[in-house]
């Protein structure tokens, strides 16, 4: 910060701020808007509805949004780097079905986890290779994979539901550690690592460069192919993690697992302030975005709103949050 009463600004102040991220910037970020909306909503709900302010309900919310948050961390990296992955819902169903079948065949916890992570990573790697090596736009590849993977999971089970899946992974869904659901701890841990990576590691910064301008990034020496494959593979890996959470909570795995999941994840990421055009966004925003969506849905149940209204209110609040942020930004610029 420049000293007061200084006539000419110091050279350091004229340089773009790379390291300095003070409270002022933090307050002006999209994350702050969402955090405030979240806090206001929770406060109002807690005062009006005693059943909302219980620890059990907070755990419910966190448990419900954990899967969205976990995959959202990967999706943030994908969208920041200028791509998109709409295949995560179908990928989730493939992972869940494969893990469920392994568990039915008597696989142990370690094997089930290994299988989930391997299948997820393999799917992500395939996406990344098609996008990076095949040089096809990510939305084409992942739209195609959305359809193909859905058929794969359908065919794997012969179109039937998997029932009687052993609950040996249930700790990953409803287990709690220090009052919070274990699944949410996983989301936060992955989020913390990803935040550090995106914020401090050179290759993490490369993702922003890639999203801002791929050609400039390439000329500046960013390994475009490697970064591209990496972000999709890591998203696949996180889908594998999410599938562990899913299988842990369901003894019956239906054929329509993860239908619409991609939209929930993208909604969380975009509400969290990540620009869909790439080059801008944070993982913390995504976690807050996922929390906001989950809290809204929970609040609707608590106030006993007709379940059918969820979409209207969810859609309205998405527009409201993002619109508010836009207006705030405009007011600041003028």
């Amino acid at each position, binding site marked *: 910060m420049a000293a007061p009463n200084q006539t000419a600004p110091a050279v350091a102040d004229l340089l773009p701020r790379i390291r300095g991220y003070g409270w002022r910037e933090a307050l002006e970020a999209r994350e702050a808007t969402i955090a405030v909306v979240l806090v206001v909503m929770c406060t109002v709900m807690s005062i009006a509805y005693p059943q909302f302010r219980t620890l059990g309900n907070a755990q419910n919310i966190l448990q419900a949004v954990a899967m969205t948050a976990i995959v959202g961390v990967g999706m943030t990296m994908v969208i920041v780097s200028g791509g998109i992955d709409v295949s995560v819902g179908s990928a989730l169903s493939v992972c869940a079905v494969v893990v469920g079948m392994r568990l039915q065949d008597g696989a142990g916890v370690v094997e089930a986890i290994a299988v989930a992570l391997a299948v997820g990573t393999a799917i992500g790697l395939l996406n990344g290779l*098609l996008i990076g090596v095949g040089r096809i736009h990510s939305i084409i590849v992942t739209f*195609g994979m959305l359809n193909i993977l859905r058929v794969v999971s359908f065919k794997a089970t012969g179109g039937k539901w998997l029932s009687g899946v052993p609950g040996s992974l249930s700790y990953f869904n409803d287990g709690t550690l220090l009052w919070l659901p274990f699944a949410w701890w996983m989301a936060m841990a992955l989020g913390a690592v990803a935040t550090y990576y995106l914020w401090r590691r050179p290759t993490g910064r490369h993702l922003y460069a890639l999203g801002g301008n791929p050609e400039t990034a390439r000329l500046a020496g960013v390994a475009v192919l490697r970064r591209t494959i990496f972000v999709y593979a890591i998203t696949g890996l996180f889908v594998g993690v999410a599938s562990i959470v899913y299988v842990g909570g369901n003894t019956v795995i239906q054929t329509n697992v993860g239908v619409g999941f991609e939209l929930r994840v993208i909604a969380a990421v975009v509400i969290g302030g990540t620009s869909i055009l790439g080059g801008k966004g944070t993982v913390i925003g995504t976690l807050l975005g996922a929390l906001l969506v989950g809290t809204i849905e929970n609040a609707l149940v608590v106030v006993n709103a007709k379940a059918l209204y969820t979409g*209207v209110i969810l859609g309205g609040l*998405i527009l409201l949050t*993002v619109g508010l942020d836009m207006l705030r930004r405009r007011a600041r610029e003028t």
Partner: protein
Amino acid sequence: MIDVPAVRRPRADLSVSAVLRFLLIERWVLLVILLGGLIAFDGARVQDFLTYDNLAGSTAFAVEVGILALAQLLVIVTGRGAIDLSVGSAVSLASVFFGECVTKFGLSLWPAVLLTVLFGLGLGAVNGFFVAVVGLPALIVTLATLFAYSSLALVITNTVPISDVPPKLFDLALYWHGIPRQTLLVYVPVIAIVWLLMRFTVFGRHLYGLGTNAVAERFAAGPVVLARFSAFAISGMLAGIVALVTSARFASARPDAGLNLELQSITIAVLGGVAITGGVGTVPPVVLATLLITLVNNGINLAGIDPIWQQAALGGILIGSALLNSFAGRRYGAT
């Protein structure tokens, strides 16, 4: 800027690379080849495929998703990540609106039809307002209206389809010399109008200009806000038209009429060569892509294969054709 001597176009460059380049780079040529291959393959292998009645009749299934693919073309072409995820939900809500018009409000058929189309226009205008006037990203806006519209459709009907739709509407799903009427009376005119709009009107050129370079378009005094707004509004209007077609085909107004249509329509638009980054895409390849997917599905049905494979075929064709285009582009020079 570039010193261009008189353009010399080689009259008939029939070298292998030139021919391959033409076949693989031009999207519509690729689609025609795929379509021809499919018809030959299915015609030889699948009974009753290569009959007039089957080929003409199968177009009934192309109408709805085909019109929505054209709606995506209009929107995606405007660029800046524009996309309309809400078309499917808009179809559902417009269907319900139509059903309510003719049952609860007792309107006769034609006023109800007109109002439904206008209602669709209104739904699209909501998207257009938030995207073009307020300036929010299209993906967020249409994601929000996707949730909102489909949920409203379910709330209004309490999830029960409205089945006492005037029987006169069902005439739309009848056949004229083996051709479904909705193809002739709705799909073909819509194709023609959108094609004329995109190709020959100033408005259409503004859409391409906007998608190619929005800043340049603004400096060229193009109606940036109005064009972007109109693209979404027209997309909604087309969803309203599709709502009428589905109501005629199902003989009822269903609150889930448009389920998953957004993904299918985007997939077909992309297969038809619409660049997701904006500025690129024309009507004929999108129509060809619609026909291709419809006939693939038809062949799978007739051959008695599990219809789930339709979905895999859609994905496979999408990625396969993009891969082919990409590799051909690099090998023989992109256009």
